[in-house]
């Protein structure tokens, strides 16, 4: 659908509403995914979907409805359902009304590449074949996905909001497995031309080869070097547990009441920036509010959290443009997390460790003590023992149980290079470096 057609359709549907205020959010997606495993392609799929989410407001009552039917009749129906739902609600005294239109940075922040939107299944097959052939050459088995997506996000409301953004995502990943080891490679970009299947395959193959015949390491506190993939899992958990106004409201945010105080290592800066073109930018949120940069930690000192219009009004702040689709139980959420680059490299970091663990990625993280951001999970796809400054041996995967703020406090080195890691949500990305941290707690070992 074109920008004009979609916005016209949505504006017309506003006219069918008998609510005091109405908001319509539409996401369309043309997505294709090639899924391979055991060196064969086993699924190759495409989907063309649209989802329309409507909030109807009657006084301080808010109702919602959604549909996949983008016809004028379908939109008119869902708009009426939202206002009917609103009339069933009681007043929410904290609801400030739908937000008024705010100016969105003129021009595009980027994020859409025509070649990505136009890419064909045959191109994905050829890329995947390169990964498979590299794995086969070493007698290994490759698995992974190559996804190409072109999407639209549009928000209109009776408060004058009219926002439209079109974006693309290309993401290739590979898990390469041997009999007793595995490796991981991944690359994502808005531009399909940036995806380098040879590099993805090479990284995964090399890790799988180097970590063959893993030894068992007794759990305990270790110095660790974490790849950007490992940092991503942990920062995703931190974002969920502690970087939003909702976590402040629940007194589960380590930043609360500590603005400007030294909370973690002075080399750590963590922020959300939806406008930075080096990530996967989104100029506005699901309320059509412009994205603002939010600094969570600046050189280790406490900063702010992200807000949507609801939490902003409730807590006397301004929205930072971080609303997810409403209603939701998650609250405002940072979809474009960056960790500031350091001045090191992975090779340097490893060379500074006398005895420690290198982690390619973590898996299945879950909170153990949400209030203190203590999480557990396991390592996977390439865990090394570091001895005397060198990765010497693969080790069996380890379970960790670690406080994330403690980990940032014990971070002693950060890499110059950062990886762009597209979000599993299909929108946004994290841009993260490798880090070296001391006293990381491993609490178990797998068989």
């Amino acid at each position, binding site marked *: 659908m074109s920008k004009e057609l979609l916005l016209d359709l949505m504006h017309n549907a506003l006219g069918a509403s008998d609510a005091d205020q109405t908001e319509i959010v539409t996401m369309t997606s043309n997505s*294709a995914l*090639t*899924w391979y*495993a*055991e*060196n064969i*392609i*086993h*699924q*190759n799929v*495409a*989907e*063309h*979907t649209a989802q329309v989410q409507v909030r109807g407001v009657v006084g301080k009552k*808010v*109702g*919602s*409805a*959604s*549909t*996949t*039917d*983008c016809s004028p009749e379908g939109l008119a129906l*869902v708009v009426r*359902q939202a206002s009917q*739902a609103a009339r*069933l*609600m*009681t007043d929410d005294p904290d609801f400030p009304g739908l937000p008024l239109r705010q100016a969105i940075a003129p021009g595009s922040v980027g994020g859409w590449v025509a070649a990505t939107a136009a890419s*064909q*299944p*045959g191109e994905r*097959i050829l890329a*995947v074949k390169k990964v498979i052939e590299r794995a086969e050459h070493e007698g290994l088995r490759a698995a992974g*996905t190559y*996804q190409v997506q072109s999407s639209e996000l549009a928000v209109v409301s009776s408060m004058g909001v009219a926002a439209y953004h079109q974006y693309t995502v290309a993401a290739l*990943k590979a*898990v390469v497995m041997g009999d007793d080891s595995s490796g991981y490679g991944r690359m994502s970009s808005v531009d399909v031309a940036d995806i380098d299947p040879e590099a993805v395959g090479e990284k995964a193959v090399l890790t799988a080869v180097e970590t063959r015949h893993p030894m068992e390491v007794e759990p305990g506190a270790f110095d660790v070097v974490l790849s950007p993939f490992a940092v991503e899992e942990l920062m995703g958990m931190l974002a969920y547990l502690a970087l939003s106004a909702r976590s402040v409201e629940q*007194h*589960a945010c380590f930043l609360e009441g500590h603005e400007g105080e030294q909370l973690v290592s002075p080399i750590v800066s963590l922020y959300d920036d939806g406008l930075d073109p080096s990530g996967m930018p989104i100029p506005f949120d699901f309320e059509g509010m412009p994205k603002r940069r939010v600094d969570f930690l600046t050189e280790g000192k406490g900063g702010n959290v992200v807000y949507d219009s609801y939490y902003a009004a409730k807590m006397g702040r301004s929205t930072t443009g971080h609303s997810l689709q409403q*209603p939701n139980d998650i609250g405002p959420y940072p979809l474009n997390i960056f960790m500031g680059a350091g001045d090191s490299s992975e090779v340097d970091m490893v060379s500074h460790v006398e005895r420690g663990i290198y982690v390619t990625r973590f*898996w*299945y993280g879950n909170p*153990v*003590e*949400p*209030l203190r951001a*203590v999480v*557990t999970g*396991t390592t996977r796809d390439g865990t090394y023992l570091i001895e005397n400054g060198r990765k010497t041996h693969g080790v069996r*995967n380890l*379970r960790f*149980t*670690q406080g994330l703020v403690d980990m940032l406090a014990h971070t002693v080195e950060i890499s110059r290079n950062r990886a762009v890691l597209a979000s599993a949500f299909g929108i946004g990305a994290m841009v993260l470096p490798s880090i070296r941290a001391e006293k990381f*707690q491993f*609490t*178990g*070992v*797998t*068989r």
Partner: protein
Amino acid sequence: MDKFTERVIAGAKRLGATYCDCRLVDMEREDVSVVGGAPRAVVHAHQRGFGVRVIANGAWGFSSSSVVTDAEADHIVEEAVDIANASALAKKKDVVLAPVSSGEDMIPHQADVDPFTIPDSDKIGLLAEATRAMMLPGVVLARGQMQFLKERKIFASSEGSYIVQDRVESGAGISAMAASEKGGVQIRSYPMSFSGDNAQSGWEFVDAMKLLEHAEPTAREALALLSAKPCPSGVKDLVVGGQQLALQVHESCGHPSELDRVMGMEASFAGTSFLTTDKKGSFRYGSDIVNLTADATIPHALGGLAYDDEGVKGRKVYLVRGGIFEHYLNSRASAPVVGEEPMGAMRADGFARSPIVRMVSINLEPGELTFEQLIGGVEDGLYVDGIKSWSIDDRRLNFQFGSEIGWEIRAGKLQDMVRNPTYTGVTYEFWRSCDGIGGPELYHVWGVDNCGKGEPMQVAHVSHGTSPARFRHVQVGVLHE
């Protein structure tokens, strides 16, 4: 066959597909949530669309759309066949489907009272009253939610199947969160954590939960946890409540039994499985008393189905019998590889996604013990229940789970309550240490509506029948500092 699915299948054949199936799905959902006596959200969602799966040149192709028109059908069929032809460029061998019987069938839903006929105001009213009853001093958040689903799914295939299945689901739950400086944040839920309990039933299922009666006791347990002692750490005997055991069955039996995982198809996302094909028929998964089934035929179970999304009739198989690993959850393409018959476990999330191997109802068959006998057989141990946190490695071996609540057991009696109980272990060692399972009177089939798997992510509605069970020598109270 209706004209739409007929057009899809004829179109696929014309373009050279040797197999085609079409799923036309029309689904309505309602989610109601209430916080502290006030409605938080009432969301009505409608989804309609179709997915087309083909085999052409010996390879799979799939495409789907939310636009249900003849023109879009032609476009989607063409795209599915194009994708299959592209896939064939990299195939090593042709896809072969195990033969299944085909035919026409019409499956009604299992609800007595259509939950969509109950006024939203009644649903809100019940949750408001229950959550208000939980707002005792010290409770910082009282939540209640209900979710309902009504679906008509038409499955048509080029092999002559035309199956119409209606499905109604209902679910509800309440939870109280209490907080204090000493006790941290503590949550108790009823009847189950997260979205509560769910079933293929109507409003009668929610009605029978008696949410109001359980509201205050649930909140009192959350408050009591604030002053409970921390979970002790050590190797102890462990009695796991039925609700927590549902999670254990889900993570350590259900997922590793999925044949696509075993064959590496999930390796890049959720991982693989320790239940490799050489273990089939001989591997000691658990003790002699451990019998685990995949049973799609349990009436009202959330994971139940008459036919899966390949048109295969749902049935019961033993995944583990007498402690020995016996059978996988499979598909038409994967079952023949390990010498099995398809057992009806291919399921798709909505119309847009291609079916993958999923759980149905995965159950630990009941034993003979009473709850008192289970506890009575423990000298020094712990009883835990209420799902709070879970993590398991990518082969489904090393797990660490946290429960909402626990009690110490000493000399065969429940003693002090403990907060933040956790336990960890290795799947087969844990199940081999099982020496007691609660009887049929303690058995309940829990409905879980949030099982994630696949890329792109698909959410399945599954269920787990469990009674409490006893495990020996388990590491509890995982220390992390």
